[in-house]
């Protein structure tokens, strides 16, 4: 009736207990990732600290989107819509950073003010 793989699977299993266990497992994984990102934040890794923290954040977000938001196993159009949102964010970042990173005076220079 719903057409979604996860919901169909729930119908056949011991619904509520299965859902609690599955979602609690995802939550536990996210808590572990949170603690990991907290720990790594205090390790001096130079320029790599932020990219690593963001990668961990992306895994956590992926868990929420794929599992809690049931994107995985759902109809392709929803996943495609989410993906296209991400694509447009990347386009926005790409176009803006193409300007900022190639400015005269380097990245940390402030943009020159026209006379």
């Amino acid at each position, binding site marked *: *009736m*719903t*057409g979604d793989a996860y*919901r169909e699977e*729930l119908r056949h299993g011991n*619904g*509520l207990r299965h*859902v*609690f266990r599955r*979602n*609690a497992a*995802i*939550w536990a994984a*996210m*808590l572990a990732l*949170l603690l990991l*990102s*907290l720990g790594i*934040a*205090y*390790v*001096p*890794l130079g320029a790599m*600290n*932020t990219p690593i*923290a*963001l990668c*961990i*954040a992306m895994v*956590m*977000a992926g868990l*929420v*989107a794929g599992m*809690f*938001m049931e994107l995985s196993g*759902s*109809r392709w*159009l*929803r996943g495609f*819509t*989410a993906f*296209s*949102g*991400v694509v*447009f*964010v990347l386009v*926005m*970042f790409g176009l*803006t*950073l193409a300007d*900022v*990173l190639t400015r005269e005076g380097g*990245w*940390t*220079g*402030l943009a020159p003010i026209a006379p």
Partner: protein
Amino acid sequence: MSDVSILKEPWPRLDVQRDGSLFGLWVFLASELLFFGALFLTYAVCRIQNPEGFLLAARETNVVFGALNTAILMTSSLTIAVASYAAAEGDKALRPVMMRCFAITVMLAVAFLVVKGFEYAEDIEKHLVPGPDFALEERGAELFFALYWTITGVHGIHLLIGIGLIVRLWLLARMNQLTLEKNPEVEAATLYWHLVDIVWIFVFPLLYLSGRAL
């Protein structure tokens, strides 16, 4: 109440209505990604231009409050996912579970806002509000905190909206004016809630974890 009350124009059947509502919701969530994406992009540009200022300023945020709030929001995502499942199953026996999980979700969100309140009070006391009394002197530190207040403030408003959505569903169900079982409105509110959680998952490392290893 029968399924007829949930089915709305122009949908011919419930499953088609569900697919349509979820697709529409995801289009909205994609636009929200761009909304917060623009804020994150501003952060990125300002941080590229003021790396030391940003890292030094980020050390002044309260990482305990930030981590606690991240854990609170993650747990609320768990409880709302269980509530959403209970609603989708349509089993009347699961109704107490559903209502209780919605209530816990809202309580966790309120707890988030309470922690935020304490955090804001502490920040104001430490003169971390951009303006003439701003405490830090490094170039870019004030910019960091302008972004801090804007991003956390906007996120808080989104959370308030989410609280409103869930409270409305809970109250209408309580008063038997709305059937939550198999209702796409529940899934829509749940998806919005998870997006608010996802946004915070990215806010946390950018505002709270940066500069800790200095």
